[in-house]
């Protein structure tokens, strides 16, 4: 590989890693704060992508679709938490696995009933449909840069939310000791609901952003789910920053693995995980 290719592949790695971060951050928050293992998180990504498709075809613009989609998915998330997940906090992990596994089946079939099984494309908004020439033959799509930029902004937003706001303080407290939070007279149920809805919205937003470049198709959530698990394991449960680092590591490992070790590309990500487990069984940034 020449230098220019390496640079461009680096750009690819960053973009893929940042998108994965968006999905995994919600997952790690729900894991860390609520202690719930959620297999349906990949479905949230799928729901986001299909929402982007449906809303874009109705409204004609991905912008509008995303603007409508964020509050909508937040609301769905809160509803799900109220209806289902709030019953799971005191149950053991096995029952959580079971219920969220059932949810995957339900979401996929609902998707099949409501939207069908065809593959659909979502148009890139005209504003970002250009490409920037990087070498004499290759251009880099502006939209991919936009995705990276949005992800970075959201990561900063999450940082601000968790470090600087009252909600963030409650989230951090809940992360360490839920009985302490309750002792402070804070409504822990409300925190859980907000965190869960936030996780749902983040995963769905990732799906919406990715829809134009990945197209929308059945079972698109399951690959994302397992990669997100790997990211959470590597980063450490509950650690948003661990998730960011891990997502970037995975982005690089996957991108360069594909080109350099094509026969083993699917495995590279998991080998990275195995190495981290040997080194630090609880992830690179374990929470207190």
């Amino acid at each position, binding site marked *: 590989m020449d230098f220019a290719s390496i640079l461009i592949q680096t750009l690819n790695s960053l973009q893929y890693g940042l998108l994965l971060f968006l999905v995994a951050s919600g997952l790690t928050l729900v*894991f860390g704060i609520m*202690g719930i*293992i959620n*297999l349906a998180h990949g479905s949230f990504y799928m729901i986001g992508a299909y929402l982007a498709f449906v809303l874009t075809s109705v409204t004609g613009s991905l912008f509008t679709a995303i603007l409508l989609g964020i509050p909508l998915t937040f609301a769905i998330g809160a509803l799900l938490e109220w209806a*289902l997940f709030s*019953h*799971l906090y005191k*149950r053991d*992990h*096995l*029952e959580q*696995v*079971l*219920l969220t*596994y*059932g*949810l*995957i*089946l*339900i979401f*996929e*079939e*609902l998707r*099949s*009933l409501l939207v069908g099984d065809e593959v659909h494309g979502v148009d890139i908004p005209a504003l970002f449909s250009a490409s920037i020439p990087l070498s004499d033959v290759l251009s880099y799509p502006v939209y991919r840069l936009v995705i990276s930029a949005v992800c970075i902004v959201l990561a900063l937003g999450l940082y601000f939310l968790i470090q600087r706001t009252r909600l963030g303080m409650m989230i951090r407290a809940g992360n360490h000791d839920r009985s302490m939070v309750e002792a402070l007279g804070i409504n822990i149920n409300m925190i859980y609901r907000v965190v869960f809805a936030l996780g749902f919205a983040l995963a769905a937003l990732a799906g919406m952003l990715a829809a134009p470049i990945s197209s929308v198709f059945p079972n698109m959530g*399951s690959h994302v789910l*397992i990669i997100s*698990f*790997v990211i*959470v*394991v590597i980063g450490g*449960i509950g650690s948003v920053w661990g998730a960011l680092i891990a997502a970037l590591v995975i982005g690089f490992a996957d991108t360069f693995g594909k080109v350099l070790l094509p*026969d*083993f*590309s*699917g*495995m590279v990500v*998991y*080998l990275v*995980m*195995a190495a981290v*487990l*040997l080194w630090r*069984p*609880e992830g690179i940034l374990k929470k207190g």
Partner: protein
Amino acid sequence: MNSTASTTLKLLGLLLLACVPLSGESFYVELAAKTLVLAIFAMSLDLLVGFTGLVSFGHAAYFGVAAYAVALLSPKYEAASLWYVLPASVGLSALAALLVGFFVLRTKGIYFIMVTLAFAQLAFFVFHDTPLGGGSDGIYLNVKPTAEIAGWLPFDLDNPSHLYYFILAALVGVYAFLARILQSPFGRVLVGIKSNEHRMQSMGYLTFRYKLAAFALAGGLGGVAGFLYAVVFGFVTPELLSWHQSGNVLLMVILGGMGSLPGAIAGAFVFTGMQELFASWTKHWQLVMGGVIVAAVLFLPGGLAAVPDRIKRSLQGGGSNE
């Protein structure tokens, strides 16, 4: 419930299963054979989930490793010897479990669930991506292994009835093996680990080793099921190692009630039965299945396992009509 009655019930169940090939309906014999294979698979996972307290969400990996081992170890157009491929494939799956166990048993709780899943995915990609496994198309086992020993053929796996009884014998064998192990000092330690691992450690048990042994053992027994699956269907694909497969077998264990070997067998039958039944209603049968699962978790804490107890209790409650 005394033990004579329970033994009688078990023998009755066995008799019932033994009668299936007499029906002569080859499709249903094969369906029953598949269910028996899944029952073996479910029992092997129950050793981990129900008896040792390790919720593995990647058990399909060992099932798949053994299935692939049969396909890869058999010559393309000749029969391999059963007495070579069976131990080899079971050994390989146990070895894979030993290796994976060394990593995953360093973690606990949610981590353990996710890490077992991720390692199963790694195994999936070994067969999916590398030249070893033939990609997503899988590999055919063109000729079933032969049971011939020095010119003498005790039974013929190409004969569907022989194959069925071979599987039934394997089921009984695995059941007896596990039942015996659970009564041994080793088995008691596993149950102790499930109940209170920390206490086991403070009593001087190096629990990691026991868990690793259990993990490898469960992997090997899952391999028995994988071996039989490959022989029944003559075809292996990476899907055998997929996380849906791991999820389904976990479901069987839970449906049957964790920590009960007959329960695991029943779970496999209930699962297959539901699948066939729902699929005959609607092509969106997974919606029904998903709904049943979610409802079961919400409204039946303790799972289906608790249902007979509930019925018993309600029967006893209304004892006056007897």
